[in-house]
């Protein structure tokens, strides 16, 4: 089984979000970048396939050279090799088109990607990719088993789960549940040393037109400070929620 895991390089959740150049660019100054948490669940699931079912695991990122430390980290966790498509993408469709090219050339059976990235939260790349390359597609996957060529998965639906069956070739958009938080791996020293020697191939982008582009960013208006109500006066809270906030 040849697996490709798509990796986004995103600001750590605790990062301060600021914008520069007249609010047109995200300010990366002082921001710590990490493996997109949703992708990390998928990477860990891929490692299990590698260890228990003899799969090969390639990781890919569509981005500039600054994303390479994140790719190296995925190699330290255990991926076999990495690909970086050298373009700073403008939108999700562009990313999907670059990934489609990588999948076509690499002949992967299974593509794993987080259901969203923690920066732009677009939730579109896996579905676009699957449609572009005509792979089967399961979104919001919270459980995945593969026996031979039979794929069984669980996906989140409103108020529960749906068990689905499918076959290769397949794109899975995963989230917590495909593995649990406790299953995530921290690279050890040996992994880090080995990662230095693993191949990280830089490929040129096919470069397509973006379908959408961001004109500017803004931050939400600062919120009013909290209205405190005394603990022995819940009537006041109910009154505020009814007459002021109008939510009950």
């Amino acid at each position, binding site marked *: 089984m040849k697996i490709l895991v798509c990796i986004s390089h995103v600001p750590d959740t605790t990062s301060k979000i600021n914008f520069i150049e007249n609010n047109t660019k995200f300010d990366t100054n002082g921001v710590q970048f990490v493996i997109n948490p949703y992708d990390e669940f998928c990477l860990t699931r891929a490692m299990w396939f590698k260890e228990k079912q003899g799969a090969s695991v390639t990781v890919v990122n569509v981005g500039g050279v600054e994303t390479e430390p994140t790719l190296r980290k995925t190699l330290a966790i255990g991926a076999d090799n990495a690909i970086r498509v050298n373009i700073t993408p403008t939108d999700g469709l562009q990313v999907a088109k670059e990934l489609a090219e990588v999948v076509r050339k690499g002949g992967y059976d299974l593509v794993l990607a987080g259901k969203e990235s923690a920066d732009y939260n677009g939730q579109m790349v896996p579905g676009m990719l699957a449609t572009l390359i005509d792979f089967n597609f399961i979104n919001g996957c919270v459980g995945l088993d593969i026996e031979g060529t039979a794929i069984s998965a669980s996906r989140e639906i409103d108020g529960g789960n749906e*068990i689905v069956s499918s076959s290769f070739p397949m794109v899975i958009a995963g989230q917590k549940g495909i593995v649990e938080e406790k299953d995530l791996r921290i690279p050890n020293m040996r992994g880090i040393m080995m990662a230095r020697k693993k191949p990280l191939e830089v490929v040129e982008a096919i470069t397509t037109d973006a379908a959408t582009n961001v004109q500017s960013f803004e931050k939400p208006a600062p919120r009013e400070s909290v209205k405190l109500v005394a603990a022995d006066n*819940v009537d006041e809270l109910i009154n505020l929620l009814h007459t002021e*906030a109008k939510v*009950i």
Partner: protein
Amino acid sequence: MSVLVFADSSEGKFKKTAFEVVSYGKKVAEQLGTTIVVLTINATDSSELHAYGAEKIITVSNESLGTFNAKQYASIVTEVAKQHTATVVVLDSSIDGLYLAPIVAVNLEAGYASNTVSLPSSTSPFTVKRKAFSNKAFSDTVIATETKVIGLAKNSFGIHENTTTGSSEVFEPTIIELGVLSEKVERVTGTVTIADADVVVSAGRGLKGPENWGMIEELASVLGAATACSKPVSDLGWRPHSEHVGQTGKPVASNLYIAIGISGAIQHLAGVNASKVKVVVNTDPEAPFFKAADYGIVGDAFEVVPKLIEKLKAFKQV
């Protein structure tokens, strides 16, 4: 030219988001000087959508479409969009909507703006405001393609009555070969889902143990609310993972979010701050959640919650 809205239903009944996307689509159609076409699949009574501005309603009814399949549903949305030369396609941000939208966008060679929270500020270039960075920012995004797909963020536009007379026609879709087959649907019935709830009552480690959740469930029941929990609580196994809300859990965009004994870690806030009104009950006045909340009570949940239940019961009876 038209604006096409897909009004999603479950077991024949429209979801609340269906009324919201129709309300939104009607306004977009007005801005573009065109008509709104609404697609429904296996809905029992599509005519209720006229109340929110639906002009032309396309109904599909087919037993084989009883269970949602993204590829099949996307194919139907695509067929209807082409037939009605839709320039804008509006979908909701439910789990189904998010599954469909990227497929529809590629099918129609359309740009897709997910997490949209506003009407177009301009129709040429076509510009909408979207949420980004886990609700910590917005972006003004231009969709440059001829056809545009909009994923409307839940509870961002609201439901607006706009009674319209209109027509209805039946559409026979092409049934395609499915790549993903549904084997079993496991759904908890009889409770409000977090996705559909107007009010969510959520509790954290401050509750001290799973045995203390009775009062949280009772408070939720008084308010007709869904119950939720923080990540540590689901990690400890006090509550099922399906109740975990926050960054890696379920997103919440309810009208009212009540957080009890939750300190408000950044990852938690990232998942819930799309809720309109937030209420916090916590013993620690320094809990970070107080900085993100609208109303707060510094106090012990074990004293405050029972009082709240009692007073709310009285309030509901008035």
